[in-house]
């Protein structure tokens, strides 16, 4: 069974059909990319999955569970983590604290136990810390562990955001333009990490990306969208060769 199923998804903002009849499914262990020109509705699809927007019609199912009936803060509990196109980190906290915040869904103590800092809270903190250290090691963030986010360079923040999503120990990770604004070397690092996430962590990856080298390098399947409508789906090479996709990117004249 598919891990994530999206069926005839649509969201209209007044007369604007931001997403209009998009269907796809992501298999467990797959790396799936959504591509498309600016304003195609890629990030909107992400925001529909994380329940920031309510869909006008259509269904989203994760592991058989209907997501559209859930609140946005329930999505993470199911094991879906995400990053944001414009980095949304907690600027006034350290890298370590940001990653620890990613462990929120795994806490079992309540605020009274926290205020008294019972031995159980400490045991759990150690366990969270252990998981976070694994992420720090994986993403090579050791040098920044105790730095405030506000003072970090863009590329590092981008990585910290991936780290925060990984700290959640998710089953599905949504990466919204993980390579935007990164240098060629940094993009290559991201490609290796995505490979490792799939191979070593058994993660399923759904991403929105403009960088075609990254998409062709790591993705199994690609969905191209334009103006909220699906254009083509298939392997990166198939989608790139599809005349509708070329028309959407380059104009109708170029496809001829």
């Amino acid at each position, binding site marked *: 069974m598919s891990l994530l199923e999206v069926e005839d998804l649509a969201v209209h903002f007044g007369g604007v059909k931001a997403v209009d009849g998009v269907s796809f499914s992501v298999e467990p262990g797959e790396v799936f990319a959504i591509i498309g020109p600016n304003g195609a509705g890629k990030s909107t699809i992400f925001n529909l999955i994380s329940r920031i927007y309510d869909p006008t019609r259509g269904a989203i199912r994760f592991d058989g569970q209907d997501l559209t009936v859930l609140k946005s*803060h*329930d*999505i993470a509990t199911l094991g879906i983590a995400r990053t*944001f196109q414009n980095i949304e980190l907690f600027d*006034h906290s350290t890298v370590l604290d940001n990653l620890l915040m990613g*462990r929120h869904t795994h806490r079992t103590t309540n605020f009274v136990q926290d205020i008294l*800092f019972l031995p159980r809270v400490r045991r759990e903190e*150690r366990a969270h810390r252990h998981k976070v*250290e694994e992420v720090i090691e994986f993403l090579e963030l050791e040098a920044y562990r105790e730095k405030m986010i506000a003072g970090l360079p863009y590329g590092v923040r981008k990585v910290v955001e991936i780290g925060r999503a990984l700290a959640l120990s998710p089953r599905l990770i949504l990466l919204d333009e993980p390579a935007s604004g990164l240098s060629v070397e940094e993009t290559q690092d991201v490609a290796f990490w995505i490979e490792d996430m799939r191979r070593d962590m058994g993660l399923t990856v759904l991403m929105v990306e403009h960088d075609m080298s990254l998409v062709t390098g790591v993705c199994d399947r690609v969905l191209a969208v334009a103006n909220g409508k699906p254009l083509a789906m298939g392997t990166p090479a198939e989608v790139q060769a599809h005349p509708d996709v070329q028309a959407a990117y380059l104009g109708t004249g170029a496809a001829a």
Partner: protein
Amino acid sequence: MRVVFKTSYDRDIDLHKDGIHRARIAVLLAVMAALPFLVGTYYLAEATNTLIWALAGMGLMVAVGHTGQVSLGHAAFLAIGAYTDSALMEAGLPFVVSFPLAGLATGLFGALIAVPAVRMSGIYLAIATLAVFVIVEEMVILLEPVTGGVGGIMAPSISILGISFDRYGALQNFYWLVLTIVALVTWGYANLMRSPTGRSFLAVRDSEVSARALGINVTRTKALAFGLSSGVTGLAGALMGHYIGFFNYELFSIFISINLLLVVTIGGLGFIPGAFLGAILITGVPQLIAILRDGLNASIGLDLSTIPGLDTMIFSLILIGFIIFEPTGLYGRWLKIRAWVELFPLARRDMFRRQKSYLKTERMK
């Protein structure tokens, strides 16, 4: 500069990063505990007042400094705490029961009004909490059987296990009682900030959308923070009532709300020690101005007490100066001085150049 080598995760989880840090806190506590033997009654009363203000400041710090919610209504929570405690004691409950109940009641009230209020933020939340304050003030006047109306009430004398903790009869004991309560609350607050609950507060403050994406229920977290904030403020209110002795609704005026907001901003938003530094400044500076004025009168015969509003003006100038020149607050200044001394002579001026990034609370969005 001292470097602490971390050999286990516990180094980061512990409240104190090393033995020296722990010893410093112990010395501070010892000096505070020995204060009744070191200073006279006047200063001991002032110290008690400062501690109560620090407690109220910590209450507001949870909301403003750590969760990004501005409140202009915290004087209302002081009032609810004070009146609830007095009413419960009048009904025959001992202080050890009435005091926590007063905090609990204020906390529940705060959490209740927070559920609709926290959907707003910044200046809108400030106005909403101001409205709550006005309502509570009117309620205090109307509920005459409990609150004494405009006339006010006398706070009952505190007695635990037969020992008097009366503010006038046994000031030393009252001071120790306040100190113990403040120390316990500070400990709990510090625990909270190193635990998942405290981190969820910070998460909600800095980015609601990613807090949600991480599975944090933003509305519930804000309501919990606001409830804890008003609960602690309620405890401070109960103590303030006992400290003043005889009080009516005027004790909890809107100026108290504003002063509390100054305590946390001037002390340093988002730092627990900031609440203490701010409380020292707010309670200490008016006293200092009065002492200087009397000294001036005695030494060179210049009598400034005939000029109305001079105290308030000097006090205001100091506050404005702080907000312009040291927006990170007293605690931020202290961190800079400490870094300068630790790095001497290697510190550079531009090391502390202010980053153009604000807490959401400051942006008043």
